[in-house]
């Protein structure tokens, strides 16, 4: 049976009617019949039009058609169908085509005042007598399109939210099979979202054959309450996993939403912060202890000197020397603290750079090298002594004194300490080498850390643990580089590079500086 929206208007009925006399009961019966179908059509919500194929004029229209297209029926009937249908947007049949009588298209109908009515339209070819017609049944889809648009927008918004986060978002059924996953989740295991469907999260993300212990997603399904937990993978990745039970309209749990965030970096940062905090606390304790050591001598000897009658002149002099030495040590520690505070606050070190030669930097160490009982231990090998450098001489002395006192502290009495200077490429390189206890690779890696002391328990090696950190800051502020090579039991060598001063600048500059120094 073909689709026949106008069932009574067929040839048979018309033939029957033409044989009947008006007012005859048969005629009346057929008329009633037609009237019933007319009523049915007029009550249909769809627009129904009958159009002649040859003249393209509307020859019949139901009440809905007139109402929805805003025409009085007497105007609509007889009107060219082009007034209502945009021919360019659809293929209007030129002639009757056998076999393809009906087709459905989405299009728009033009209303009388010019507004457009979106419709889904069925077009069927029919032949009544020998005349071909097109039957049009069109349904207003305004509401459906609006609903679809709302849905599309809400899907788009949902997608925007779910896909723009780095968090892995997965929707599971109650058996923990994946029903839906966002792109971040799929990309994290290098699969497509389709491939994730039906798989289990524990096999994909945690290389397990069963749920993780205390899995918060499983827990949320079991308890009906949101849960969260941190899960550590075998490879050390740390995940913050949160599970939320997903309930249907009846309140029954149908699955769970899992939010999964890689917090490995955050954990690492927290750990680093805790470590830095721990070092700072230890530093304060160490600093207090270190400051007490010179204070013990200063306070003790000065208290002894307050009652000088029992002391010989030699003793008095000796004690004043102790007080002076210890006060200087204290002052050095305070200077270190101020230096590190400046560096910490981002102010950096204020350098007073002058032109000088590599040799001069070593000569200014003479009091240090020749002053103590250890002078026989120092071996100097300075080549290209006249090499010009642009440096803060006092700060460079600080660098050398730090490196040399470390070499003294960490090597046995009498063992040699070698100071080497030479040109290496575009730089001048100084090295301070001892034959002391050396350091492990772990200790070498941390030697420039603030507050770090290779062996914090040993007070024979006094200091705040700031020296090497300050030294590196000084060298780097000069555009140089410093590093340490060491081997336990064999000794330690500290090297630092300083950039060579430009020759033309050094000629003028050093004179100016020398004049200003005098």
């Amino acid at each position, binding site marked *: 049976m073909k689709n026949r929206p106008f069932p009574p208007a067929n040839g048979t009925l018309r033939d029957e009617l033409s044989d009947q006399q008006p007012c005859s009961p048969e005629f009346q019966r057929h008329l009633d019949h037609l009237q019933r179908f007319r009523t049915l059509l007029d009550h249909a919500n769809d627009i129904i039009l009958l159009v002649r194929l040859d003249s393209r004029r509307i020859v019949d229209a139901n009440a809905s058609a007139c109402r929805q297209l805003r025409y009085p029926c007497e105007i609509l009937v007889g009107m060219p169908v082009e007034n209502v249908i945009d021919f360019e947007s659809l293929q209007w049949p030129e002639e009757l085509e056998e076999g393809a009588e009906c087709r459905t298209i989405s299009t728009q109908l033009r209303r009388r005042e010019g507004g457009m009515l979106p419709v889904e339209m069925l077009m069927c070819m029919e032949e009544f007598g020998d005349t071909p017609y097109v039957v049009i049944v069109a349904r207003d889809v305004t509401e459906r399109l609006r609903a679809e648009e709302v849905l599309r927008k809400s899907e788009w918004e949902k997608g925007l939210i779910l896909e723009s986060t780095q968090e892995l978002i997965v929707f599971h059924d109650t058996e923990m099979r994946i029903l839906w996953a966002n792109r971040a989740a799929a990309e994290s295991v290098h699969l497509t979202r389709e491939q994730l469907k039906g798989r289990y999260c524990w096999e994909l993300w945690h290389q397990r054959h069963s749920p993780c212990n205390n899995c918060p997603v499983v827990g949320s399904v079991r308890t009906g309450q949101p849960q969260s937990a941190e899960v550590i993978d075998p490879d050390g990745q740390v995940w913050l996993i949160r599970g939320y039970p997903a309930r249907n309209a009846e309140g029954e749990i149908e699955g769970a939403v899992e939010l999964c965030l890689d917090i490995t970096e955050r954990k690492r940062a927290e750990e680093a912060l805790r470590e830095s905090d721990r070092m700072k606390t230890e530093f304060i304790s160490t600093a207090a202890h270190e400051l*007490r050591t010179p*204070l*013990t001598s200063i306070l003790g000897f000065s*208290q*002894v000197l307050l009652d000088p009658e029992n002391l010989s002149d030699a003793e008095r002099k000796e*004690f004043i020397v*102790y007080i002076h030495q210890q006060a200087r040590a204290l002052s050095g520690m305070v200077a270190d603290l101020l230096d590190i505070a400046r560096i910490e606050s981002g102010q950096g070190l204020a350098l007073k750079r002058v032109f000088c030669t590599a040799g001069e930097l070593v000569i200014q160490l003479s009091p240090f090298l020749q002053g103590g009982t250890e002078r026989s231990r120092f071996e100097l090998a300075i080549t290209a002594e006249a090499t010009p450098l642009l440096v803060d001489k006092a700060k460079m002395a600080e660098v050398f004194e730090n490196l040399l006192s470390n070499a003294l502290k960490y090597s046995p009495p009498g063992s040699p300490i070698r100071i080497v200077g030479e040109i290496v490429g575009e730089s001048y390189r100084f090295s301070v080498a001892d034959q002391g206890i050396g350091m492990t690779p772990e200790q070498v890696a941390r030697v420039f850390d603030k507050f770090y002391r290779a062996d914090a*328990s040993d007070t024979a090696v006094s200091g705040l643990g700031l020296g090497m950190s300050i030294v590196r800051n000084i060298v780097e502020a000069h555009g140089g580089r410093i590093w340490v090579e060491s081997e336990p039991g064999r000794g330690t060598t500290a090297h630092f590079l300083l950039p060579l001063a430009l020759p033309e600048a050094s000629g003028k500059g050093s004179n100016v500086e020398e004049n200003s120094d005098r």
Partner: protein
Amino acid sequence: MLKKILIVDDQPEVARLLEIVLRREDRQLLFAANGEEGLAAARNSCPNLVLLDIMMPGEVDGYEVARRLKKDPATAGAHILVLTAKVREQDRQEAIAAGADDYIAKPFDIIDLKTRVDRVLG
């Protein structure tokens, strides 16, 4: 009778300060610069009083010296006075637990030190 005081401290100027403060006709002062030396000196001379620093170079710190002195019957009778810059409450408790009889924080008041030493030695 001559009373013996053993001073165990790695810092020579502190040892010198203690010498000045504590020297007296009826006392003999002995010095050691680390834990091992301190233990050896204590065994050799059986001091009445040991002034003991805590943080010293070498394997044996002050706590360990105190423990071993109290364990050895030959030295258990010595009065141990810990003298240290480690001044937290837990440091003091550790010193007492190790066998110290008294505890003085550095820097110390020399009158206070003298008083305490005199009380022990009479």
